């Protein structure tokens, strides 16, 4: 019975996350539009898109891997959700986080990327491969500051368990990693910019090219699956940063507020700064952010 209840709550959590993800996407696009002096889409436009895509009857496929690509991608997003404790102190909302720790989430992120890259690859569209190669290359550089930050907080808390890391930040806002370990937070938040696919790190999403995100070759239900994933993934990635650096969440409201601002950080930077080319972004990421990450470790060694 327990397992049925568990699965029920997991699905409910997933539903909440999906809805919040779609809504947040709508809000952010609205904000971007207004800042750019445009009227912008309706807040509920992502819902409309999703329903439309799932309802399209004609579907084309290039082959089995093309077909499996979106499945991999959505598994990646849902998987991270499953392995992530969402609400601190709640047994029902910690999902399946007992199976693995922070490292599991860090490495499971590759799962969706790989599947998507392969699926798009089978489409045979050269721009897919160009986008993917750029995206992956940039991703290696994005990961490095994050790795250093993760190492830093693992040293700080002597733990890789997300639940324990959140627990250590309870009590006061000053216990947040943001204040106790600002260097690691800084490195990680720069890394976050890359992960979210906004300027200055979004050349891989350039309009003509099929990147790690929803590509033009995918359509209909496939695109619907990818959009579903995007909504979920954006929320759970923000939840990850929230858990690691911003004290976690004690309830869903706190989660929604915090993830909003975390996600907004990437939108904000994206609106202010122009985009890098990939061969510019990699050296940039390997300089200042890595230095911050190294400093975040050095303060604990010394």
């Amino acid at each position: 019975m327990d397992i049925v209840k568990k699965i029920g709550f997991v699905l409910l959590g997933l539903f909440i996350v999906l809805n919040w993800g779609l809504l947040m996407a709508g809000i952010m696009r609205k904000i971007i539009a207004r800042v750019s002096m445009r009227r912008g889409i309706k807040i509920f436009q992502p819902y409309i898109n999703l329903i439309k895509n799932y309802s399209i009857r004609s579907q084309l496929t290039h082959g089995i891997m093309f077909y499996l690509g979106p499945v991999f991608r959505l598994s990646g997003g849902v998987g991270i959700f499953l392995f992530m404790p969402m609400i601190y102190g709640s047994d029902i909302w910690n999902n399946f986080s007992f199976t693995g720790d922070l490292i599991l989430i860090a490495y499971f992120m590759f799962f969706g990327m790989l599947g998507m890259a392969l699926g798009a690859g089978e489409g045979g569209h050269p721009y897919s491969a160009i986008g993917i190669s750029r995206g992956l290359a940039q991703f290696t550089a994005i990961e490095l500051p994050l790795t250093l930050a993760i190492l830093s907080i693992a040293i700080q808390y002597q733990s890789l368990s997300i639940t324990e890391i959140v627990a250590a930040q309870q009590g006061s806002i000053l216990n947040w990693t943001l204040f106790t370990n600002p260097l690691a937070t800084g490195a990680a938040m720069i890394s976050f910019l890359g992960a979210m696919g906004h300027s200055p790190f979004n050349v891989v999403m350039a309009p003509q090219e099929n990147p790690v995100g929803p590509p033009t070759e995918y359509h209909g239900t496939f695109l619907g699956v990818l959009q579903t994933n995007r909504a979920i993934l954006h929320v759970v990635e923000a939840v990850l940063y929230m858990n690691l650096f911003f004290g976690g969440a004690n309830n869903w409201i706190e989660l929604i507020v915090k993830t909003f601002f975390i996600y907004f950080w990437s939108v904000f930077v994206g609106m202010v700064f122009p985009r890098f080319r990939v061969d510019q972004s990699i050296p940039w990421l390997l300089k200042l952010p890595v230095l911050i990450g190294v400093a975040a470790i050095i303060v604990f060694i010394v």
Partner: protein
Amino acid sequence: MVSPISSIAVLLGSAFLVGLFKKTSYSFAQMLSLLAIAFPLFVSAQWLIHFIGTSDGAVMLYTAGAKPPFSVSLQIGMAEAFLTLAVNLLGLLSIIYLMKPFKELGVKALALLLILVMGLNVIILSRDIFNIFVFLEIASIALVGLILLGKRKHTYSAGFKYLIAVAIISSFLLVGIAFVYYFGSTLNIDDFVAQNLIVTKGLSTALFLLFIAVLLELKPFPANGWALDLYEAAHPGVGALISGGTATASLYVLYKILPMGADYWSDVLIWVGLISFLGSNILGISQKNANRLLGYSSIGQIGLLVAVIGFSDQLGSHFEAIFFSLFISHFLAKVGLFWLSGWVGKTELTAWSILRTKPWLLLVFGIFLFTLIGFPPFPSFFGKWQLIVDLASEHGFNWIVIILAGSLFEGIYLFRWLGYAIKGEKSTENKPLLDWQTALPIGLFALLIIGAGYVSNQWMPNGQSINLIPVFFILALFVLDFLPAWIKNTISIAGLVVYGYLLYPELSDDTLRLVFAVIFLGGGILTLIAGYSVKGKRAGFFPFALMMFAGLIGLVEADNLLQFFFAWELMTLGSYVLIIRGKRSMLHAYNYMLFSLGGAYLIFMGMAMATAGQSGISLEILRTTAFPGWTYALMAIGFLTKTAALGFHIWLPGAHAEAESDVSPMVSGILLKGGVFGLIVLFLAMGGEQAQANPLVYVLGWLGAITALIGNLIAVFQEDAKKLLAYSSIGNLGYVLFALAFMSNIGWMTAITYSLNHFLFKTLLFLAIGGVVLRVKTHNMHEMGGLIKQMPLSFIAVLIGIITLAGIPPLSGYAGKWLFYNAVIAQGWYFQGAIVFFAGTIAFLYCFKLIYAVFLGQPKDKFRQVKEAPVWYIIPQIILIIGIMVFSARPDLILKPVGELLSGSAYFPTDPLNWESVTASTNLGYWSGYKIMLVIGVMFMVLLGWLLLMSRKAQKIKQFDIVYAGETPFTPGTTHFSHNMFAPLYRAIGFLTLPMITQSWNRVNSTVHDFADSARKIYSGNGQSYLVQILAYVVIVYLILF
């Protein structure tokens, strides 16, 4: 028993008799000569058997019915019987070998040969220095006669130079003998020694002249230009007589007169010999003329033997065994090579590719060369081993360095030569006929080497500890080489299975060794299965494959240093031959061999230093070595050449990439673990956890991290699929080195997980890509594309392989990553750790490139008809995938016992890892492979089901049903994006991949070659300068001594 004096009489008599025959009755003369040499051969054999069977001492024979000093005495003991046997056998076979050229020259050639053999017999037997001098002269004159009978370009000038040299050497000898007689009133060696004379200034000068003359007979470097010219100009059959015959006799003279001299003569012999060994081998490396090269090699080897005679006091009771094994190796191999050179007929090294027309000759050539270098199971291996171990116990480390350096230089030219023979361009000219007169002596000597190897093995202390069963099995495979490949393959697999079955009880409670045994034997079986796809005989493949596996498993079984080193060298030999089988592998196999050889000598040096001052050679003594710093550093570097750590990695990409499709997984997935196992043995000896503070370990940790980064990064920029996998191996072995260097329980768990994973996925990937390469006949990924439709099974294998490689959950690669994080944080190696993780993300790039460029994207027109890889390639892949799945779902089955073994041992008592059924945890985090697998599996299936439901009517479209840049493409060649795929990354950090290390090795290489090239200009070919060199040599040695 027949007296050896009658041998001499028979030889002399028949030499005169033969001279009386005319050309018409030549064949009768020939028969007579054969019988005349067969007789002393029989006599020597009889005496040898007598001495082996009994413990009798040497027998003194007196001539002319009187005792010395009134007559000449001869002595025959074990040594004399053996050496005369060798010389007489050489004489007999020379007559056979030279049958055709002699026939043209007539009976005089036969007579000269008989005289030469007689001379050599007397030189060996005689105890009278003047008698020795006389017969040295007789032998020299006979030899000059034989040389001048040749018709090569420089024969006459070389003969003349030889005469001049011999004349001056004889003058020294004669004056020396005269003065020795003046001081000692006797010419008999034993009488002289018995007098125990006080060495006055005059006597020491007399002895100096005697010794220096005998030494000069042995052509010491650098006063040996005349000898090199002689080797080059003489008929190879005569070259064999010089190198094997006169040198043997002169060496024995040196040994006989050694007790006459003062103590310091031993040191002189050592230095003269070693300088000759080192110098001659250095100068040999830029030599391109085969006969002259053999000359360099002969002089080098004889130098080593001279040094061994000098070492006779230090070696004590081991001297005979050591001298025997080194001498017999030189004698059989060098003579055999001269004979082979006669068959090849051309002097350029590159012409030796003609040997490929007769595969068994190629095999024999290989046996000769490996014997010269000292590989097992040939006699010189055991000789060199014991020599060096004994020298180490005397703390003679400088000598060891010289011997090993000389051997390395010898390897440089000999293996280049072997490479030309195996892989050089095929000669277009007609192949020479192989008659029985050539085949018989060469074949016989090759067989004798194997026999001598057995004798050396049994004779040497600890030699009997070596398990020879695998060696005999491999020999049997050589014999069965005429069978079709599939039968031999089945025999080989059966051999491995049975061996594994028999070995299991021995290893069942040592999980650490068991894991490696599974990698070596299980991997061997799997990769051999792929070999069923090869049709025909596949000549020479299976013995060497089994040799490699026997070596690898021998490492696991080894209890003592000799067993370990024997196995190590056996593995190197087998793998070298496997690698060079690839179409374009000549250079790569050569590089592999040189790095392996250098590495092996470093390991050898380290082991030798460990034995110094300790009793026994068990692996345990590594722990109590008196020179921990040197021992460990040398051995570590040696093992790193095999695991291809950065700096020693340049051989790997070519060697792995150009090997045959089923050899690549053997040498990559399996062979590299040999180096890992070596490091494990070494690190255990260093004391496990207690060695954490050792700076060597810290340096190795950094080296591992940087290797991981650079290896992976270079892999990203490869266009050749197999090169990509090869560089990836460099990176992955970097991880393993890094993890081992933690010297902690969890670090080693990580390393073992990584080793096992690397074995599983790299064997899988190389098999899958090998299967693709077999079908599409190219390694270039940008020429492939879209093969998923034709080769779906290979695609799945590669997919599973790269998911494991990249460490993506739920597959077992993630186990390594998780353990890694925990180990890094526990150890505090954050920065090295960060580099390794960065390397891990970079690995993701080449993983994508590999699978995308080969299987996805646009299919090319020319590959529309290719089929799935052969089923024999698919079967082992399926087994490996099952292995990965099992290890992914239940890592505890392997890691738990390994962890218990490590924490139960004295080495790694601190065990931070706890297992609760299938969940592992440390004080940092936790991980449950089984549950992760379950969650991801269920989720994936649910989502797949959902998508299937939603888009069940999806319509399959064709290749070109895409649009870009305003048009529909129709040329797959220009639409498949895969060449220079990561150009932006290259622009950003590509400078890290510049081949700086390769360039530095190239500089080292060219410097050595340039040096050798300019140094050998001292051999100007001018007889007068040779004369000056001889005189200068004498003067300099004199000045150094007095």
